[in-house]
């Protein structure tokens, strides 16, 4: 059975990669790391 390389995964990955790069351009990683290094007590049920 002949198998062809599917291009859809590459298109999807590139699109989301571009989205991630836009996020990096907006400096979102700094916000993510800022949130992730703080204990969110209400998020874990200790309010």
């Amino acid at each position: 059975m002949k198998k062809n390389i599917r291009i859809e995964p590459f298109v999807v990955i590139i699109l989301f990669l571009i989205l991630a790069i836009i996020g990096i351009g907006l400096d979102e990683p700094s916000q993510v790391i800022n949130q992730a290094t703080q204990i969110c007590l209400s998020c874990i049920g200790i309010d």
Partner: protein
Amino acid sequence: MELLRKWVQGLFFFMTNGYWNFPVTRSIYKGPLKVVCSPGLNCYSCPASTTYCPIGALQQLFAGIRLSIETGQFFMGFYVIGTMGVLGGFVGRMICGWACPFGLFQELLHKIPSPKFGIWPFLRYVKYGLLVFMVILLPLFAIDEFGAGSTWFCKYVCPAGTLEAGIPMLMLRPSLQGNLGWLFLLKLSILIFFIIWAILASRPFCRTACPLGAFYALFSKVKMVKLTLDHARCTHCDACHDVCPMGVRFNESPNDMECISCLACTKACKLNAITLEIGGVPVSGQAKSPKRKSTRA
């Protein structure tokens, strides 16, 4: 292959929970790795966690979207969604089967001897509702007087957060026990419910309530690494049904959104009708036995 999967699950568990200094610091990891996305559901308030949970981070960004716009920063969640999408595009829900610590936890629970039950198929749709409402819409639109939303799924549902962060933090900081109220009781009840359910049924949280699994499921048809069915070889013996931990009938639904590519069916299929392929190129399950004609229409 099952042994390899267990090793990979263990590896990801320790990679995403590799901060073992927490009993000394009595706090969470605060280093630069926290900018890396955990592929599976892994609470970043867990004392051992080294990465961020995409579902938690997404809710935080959506909850604070108005405040970020007001301050001219425009944090819209692109980085988190983009990272999740790249992971989804590569392997989709294979992450659930190979890299999620909470999935591993449920698998171990299911090994406890007990009567085993199935899960009603319609319950699978609950997780899409949780993704849409509790992860996206409510954090975006249910705001307080200051314009800030809340992390609805983390706060009111996530049993992984209770297990990995809530309980450990209470042990590390006993003074927090004074803050406990109905919210913690609710979350503890949900955790206990899923623990008991996981003993009785296979991966109930993944199948019914995980919004991250729901997101990755959206990539089931277009992901790079996926299982495919050779219809010419399949005799519909249904051997793949019996071994699937997600209740997938692979020969009837090869692109099923529930498939976590654990490869149990590739081993069960004696006719090598199920193939693992990467971007359309088969890498395992190549036919060694002669083709058989289907016995069913």
